[in-house]
């Protein structure tokens, strides 16, 4: 066996129990990350991206959602079986997190200085007040908050969206995590501020070797920020591989269709390639491949069973019968 990965997610299953039935929000997800890796988790709304992250961090909405199977190996330990007390140490210290809405992660009644200082205090990492202040200023500088001294006593509402998100990043980074999970951290930001933020993430990764899971539905962001990509559809990863490989020659019909449906700037085509239909209702998913009703390569066999994800000869993984058939030939 090769050396263990930094993070290894194995056959993760998280189900939501709703009045209308059971939703398999995460339905057998597996992937591994190494130090310094940056994984883009992409897919349409409802495909299970956030649920995957929240399962790893064990931050599921209770009692609606429950992880019913799989393992999340983090530095050799299975996070899914860790006592909650130890899990709390992992969260925010070993694994940092940034959520979509920065306002949700910041407490409106505490100052910025107070909130960024919290992880240091919890850890007892500061020797006295002035050392704490220095440490806080240092992380605020790392995330490029201008004149941080003046900002310490301000409240979140006095910050712009971009500054709030950078503050959340500062809090996540205060614990010097080995992995940062960022769930659509730039969706509420302008492209210019998004660009600043993504560059900041790359810069911090380069400096610290931290691994990153970046949830987004923008393939452009993945191309610019990540070295690996996992494409999710209806609770499963349908394609996983190196970013260059997947984005320049997609193999799964869904990945292919997603890329073709993007407007190409500067070329005013009349019609865009259009994926027919909508994502499946997860309360009543198709029996076979979940993409079958929308797939231009669908065959009769696709309706019978969900294709498992398999390694292709070029090293990437994909879950598609048409590809399997091609590989065999």
């Amino acid at each position, binding site marked *: 066996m090769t050396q263990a990965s930094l993070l290894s997610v194995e056959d993760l299953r998280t189900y939501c129990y709703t009045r209308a039935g059971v939703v398999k929000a995460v339905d057998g997800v597996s992937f591994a990350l190494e130090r310094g890796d940056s994984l883009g988790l992409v897919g349409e709304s409802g495909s299970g991206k956030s649920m995957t992250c929240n399962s790893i961090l064990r931050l599921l909405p209770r009692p609606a959602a429950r992880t019913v199977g799989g393992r999340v190996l983090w530095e050799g330990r299975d996070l899914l079986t860790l006592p909650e007390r130890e899990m709390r140490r992992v969260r925010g210290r070993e694994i940092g997190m940034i959520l979509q809405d920065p306002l949700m992660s910041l407490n409106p009644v505490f100052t910025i200085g107070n909130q960024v200082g919290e992880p240091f205090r919890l850890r007892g990492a500061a020797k006295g007040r002035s050392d704490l202040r220095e440490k806080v200023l240092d992380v605020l500088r790392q995330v490029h908050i201008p004149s941080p001294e003046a900002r310490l006593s301000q409240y979140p509402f006095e910050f712009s969206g971009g500054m709030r998100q950078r503050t959340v990043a500062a809090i996540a980074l205060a614990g010097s995590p080995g992995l940062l999970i960022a769930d659509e951290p730039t969706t509420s930001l302008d*492209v210019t*501020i998004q660009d*600043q933020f993504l560059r900041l993430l790359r810069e911090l990764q380069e400096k610290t070797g931290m691994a990153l899971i970046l949830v987004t539905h923008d393939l452009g962001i993945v191309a610019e920020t990540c070295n690996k990509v996992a494409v999710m559809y209806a609770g499963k990863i349908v394609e996983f591989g190196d970013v*260059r490989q997947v984005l320049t020659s997609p193999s799964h019909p869904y990945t292919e269709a*997603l890329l073709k*449906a993007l407007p190409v700037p500067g070329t005013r085509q009349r019609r865009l390639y259009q994926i027919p239909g*909508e994502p499946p209702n997860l309360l009543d998913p198709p029996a076979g491949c979940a993409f079958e009703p929308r797939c231009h390569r669908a065959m009769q066999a696709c309706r019978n069973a969900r294709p498992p994800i398999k390694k292709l000869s070029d090293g990437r993984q994909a879950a598609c019968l048409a590809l399997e058939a091609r590989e065999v030939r």
Partner: protein
Amino acid sequence: MGTILELRNVKRYFGIRSGGWMGGGGEKPLKAVDGASFSIASGSSFGVAGESGSGKSTMGKLILRLDRPTGGAIEFEGRDIGKLDAEGDAWYRTRVQAVFQDASGSLDPRMRISAIVAEPLEIHARTGPNRLGKIEIREKVEDMLAQVGLPKRVMDNYPHELSGGQKQRVAIARAMILEPTMLVLDEPVSALDVSIRAQVLNLLSDFQDRYGLTYLMISHDLATLGHVSSQLAVMYLGRIVEIGGTEDIYARALHPYTKALFRAMPLPDPNRKKSAPSLRGEIGSALDIPKGCRFCPRCDEAMPVCSDVDPELVDVGAGRRVACHLMSGPQFTKATHQRGSSE
């Protein structure tokens, strides 16, 4: 193609009257739109880009008559829309309709889809000259839902029972039911997933082909605007800083702000290297617009003159107008000359 809409030095300042929302007079005005002039050709698609807070939506609301300008004039089909009587107002509402980003916010959650789409017709049937009967209205609604690609059965649904893409189709059906000549679309696909976004953009382009509609589309997404619009205006802090043919601007942006927006745009090309630094700082407050060029505090090409003199939007040839001192200096005249001779 004639002009369908023209804006002449349109301004929308907030809080200038005492007792306004900011309370008390004597306060500085918030200049949400600060002198916009352009015209839109009938049957074309006009795109408006810019960061949030640049005044795009405020301008859209002025055009929709959901808000009144504090200066300047807007003419639609030759009529000053600031001077419409009740009958003119009803006329305008049949000509110009809106689609907003958040379909769930603009669709009444207590109404069935059929009623939502029929409502403009019913209001118009009460006030307008061409009254329609119940059966005719129902037929029209069915026809419109079919045109936007929704099955008949959604008529009895409520908005929350539909997906985001379906709700946006309902919003488009409602906007189209009075057969307008122009749609103002404020971030119509920003909340939609890629696969659904392509469907809605195709639907809009089909409608344009079929009915010769004019679109004014507001978006912060340059890729979408590049696909949809033939003319493009880039706004910054209430001003249009660059305007011209979309393809020309994509091929060669002239204003430093437009260039920065393009640099920031993420492209799904893993081989593209971003070498130039990103745009620094943030869009300032419309309450406190910098002296001179309003983009100066963030501009990496700023010159001494920029912090003193507010650059005017000047014609630089080929239908392009740019508000930047770089475009009026001698070096630029030379550059255009060289470009012209090499072509």
